[in-house]
């Protein structure tokens, strides 16, 4: 029969594998165990053996009707062995049955709100496409069937389009044993079909009883512009409550994300950018950003694609700080299209996010 210590030592090997697999292993700040056993010295050899982990992947699904919102079975996202865990990555998969020629950038019309108990992770609903970086050549994670023969990668089924997105958290978030990050989704409409949503958490179970003094909670806020007419000049601005740090602590900004979508009102297509016709990003949509102190973050109106480069749709700003109770204001100048489209058919919309993390005391 194994003693508790032997069982823990045996599990350490599994934990080491998990550490390698999970990649980032920023240490927790270890405090005292609830039963009062001293645990404040991470380098203490006696304590080091308790710091071990096991990989875990949790997933839950739901189906959203057009213009509706809903949640998932939160129990499926709770650690089944009743231990605390760290989440390193949140993954989204959006599926829709559709004709094979349909362009369907679902990540821009499906929003997600995340809460860790009473601690908000997002400022309301965030378009799923702008949580993380676009995964390089596949132009942002869209795997739409036959959507654009110039750039679309192979698809698993000709009758189903699948959009996949990943948000690698800037720092792992500690989830206490009795807690769960609860997601709520919204289908923004435009497409009349149902959209299947799968959310997954990848991370590691913490098998010891160590408990951090503070945790690093991810944060995301977004501004989605109005839908502009494709051809005519127009403008729009965010308001103070959208890209805001409403907390009393600073937010460490990991990145600004930016995506553009076009809406074909006749065929109910949603095009994604950058694509082979990135006229909106380089010519039509121009962005200016300033913070609540008046500092110019994007000084003059700049082409959208110069602020959010095409490859990643992201402007990485590791180390930037968003002050407590501060906000960003985005101004968009929509220029008339140099290559006009059918005037009754197309609209264009921009979405911008601020993604980062903040410290929260437990």
């Amino acid at each position, binding site marked *: 029969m194994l003693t508790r210590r032997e069982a823990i030592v045996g599990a350490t090997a599994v934990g080491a594998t998990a550490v390698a697999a999970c990649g980032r292993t920023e240490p927790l700040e270890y405090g005292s165990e609830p039963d009062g056993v001293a645990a404040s010295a991470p380098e203490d050899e006696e304590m080091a053996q308790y710091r071990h982990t096991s990989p875990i992947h949790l997933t839950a699904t739901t189906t959203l009707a057009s213009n509706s919102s809903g949640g998932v079975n939160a129990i499926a996202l709770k650690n089944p062995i009743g231990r605390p865990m760290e989440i390193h990555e949140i993954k989204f998969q959006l599926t829709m049955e559709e004709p094979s020629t349909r362009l369907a950038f679902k990540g821009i019309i499906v929003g997600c709100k995340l809460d860790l108990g009473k601690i908000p992770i997002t400022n309301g609903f965030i378009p799923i496409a702008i949580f993380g970086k676009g995964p390089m050549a596949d*132009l942002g994670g869209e795997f739409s069937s036959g959507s654009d023969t110039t750039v679309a990668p192979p698809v698993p089924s000709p009758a189903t389009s699948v959009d996949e997105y990943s948000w690698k958290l800037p720092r792992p978030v500690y989830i206490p044993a009795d807690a769960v990050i609860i997601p709520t989704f919204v289908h923004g409409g435009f497409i009349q079909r149902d959209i299947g949503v799968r959310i997954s958490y990848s991370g590691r179970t913490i098998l010891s009883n160590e408990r951090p003094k503070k945790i690093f909670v991810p944060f995301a806020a977004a501004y989605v512009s109005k839908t502009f007419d494709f051809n005519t000049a127009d403008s729009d601005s965010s308001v103070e409550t959208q890209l805001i740090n409403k907390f009393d602590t600073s937010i460490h900004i990991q990145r600004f994300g930016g995506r553009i979508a076009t809406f074909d009102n006749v065929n109910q297509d949603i095009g994604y950018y950058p694509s082979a016709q990135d*006229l909106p990003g380089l010519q039509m949509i121009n962005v200016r950003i300033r913070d609540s102190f008046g500092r110019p*973050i994007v*000084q003059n*109106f700049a082409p959208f*694609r110069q602020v959010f480069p*095409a*490859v990643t749709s992201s402007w990485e700003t590791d180390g*930037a700080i968003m002050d407590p109770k501060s906000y960003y204001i985005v101004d968009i100048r929509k220029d008339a299209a140099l*290559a006009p489209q059918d005037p009754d058919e197309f609209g264009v919309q921009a979405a911008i996010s601020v993604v980062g993390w903040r410290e929260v005391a437990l």
Partner: protein
Amino acid sequence: MSYAPFVFSSPMQVIAANTSLIPDVTLLGNRFRKPLWIDEVRFAYMNLESEAAPFNMGLSVRCKLSLGRVALTGSRDNGFVPISMFGPSISVVPEELSGPDGTFGSFRWRLPKPLFVPANDTLRAQFFRTADGFPGDVRVSVAYAGRYTKPEESLPNTIDIPYVDTFIHSTGSTFGLSSERDLVNPFPVDLNVQRLISRTFLVSGAGISIFGLPFDIATEILIKDSYGHNVVRDFVAPRRVFDPTRSATTAPFVLKPNERINVQFRSVPATYTPMVSMVGWRREVYR
């Protein structure tokens, strides 16, 4: 006060063939005349002529960067470096997007060291477009991404200046050899090389069509240092030396003053234009 990020960008401006364009420096500098740090330089271009082939203007659109009298780009071709040769490729596709609405592309150069821009100074950019034969208006833009200095931040005594120099093979020749003015450290201080980049462009159709060719298997390359020591000992395809997905190879070494890298190309098809650039930084005293 916290550190705040910024992007300064010039608008998309028309540049005609065989001409140069200087973006408005007031848009590319700190309007508060305070020092700042630049982390990244971004280039973008667009041409609304409909093209059937995947065009890439990363060869014909070139840029010269300077901070006051301090050059960030090499001395050949008046300091103009093709905008595709500043940074490695992250993905081929966004660099050469063409379709019925035109040709769109962008490149980004994550500087090897953040560039400190003193108060009242501006990183100046100047574009040049070769006589590439492209029809229609070509529009270009440059942007800088970085961060404002903090009020309590002590200013540096030295500035690490990023540097790019490029050797461009003469189109039509089957053999090419870089000269003592190519890929050289012309400064009186050490040049810390970060990486070497290589791309091959295909110039065809009477000089009209240009597109990137990242998987050139016809050309062969050989590289030696100033003293004849082998860097790449035998002639091999560039993709054997430079990761084809990045078009680059990491090469952390130091070039002493006047030292250089010798590049030889052979078996170059008549329509191919291979290039090699050297990216690094040097330390300049700031007074």
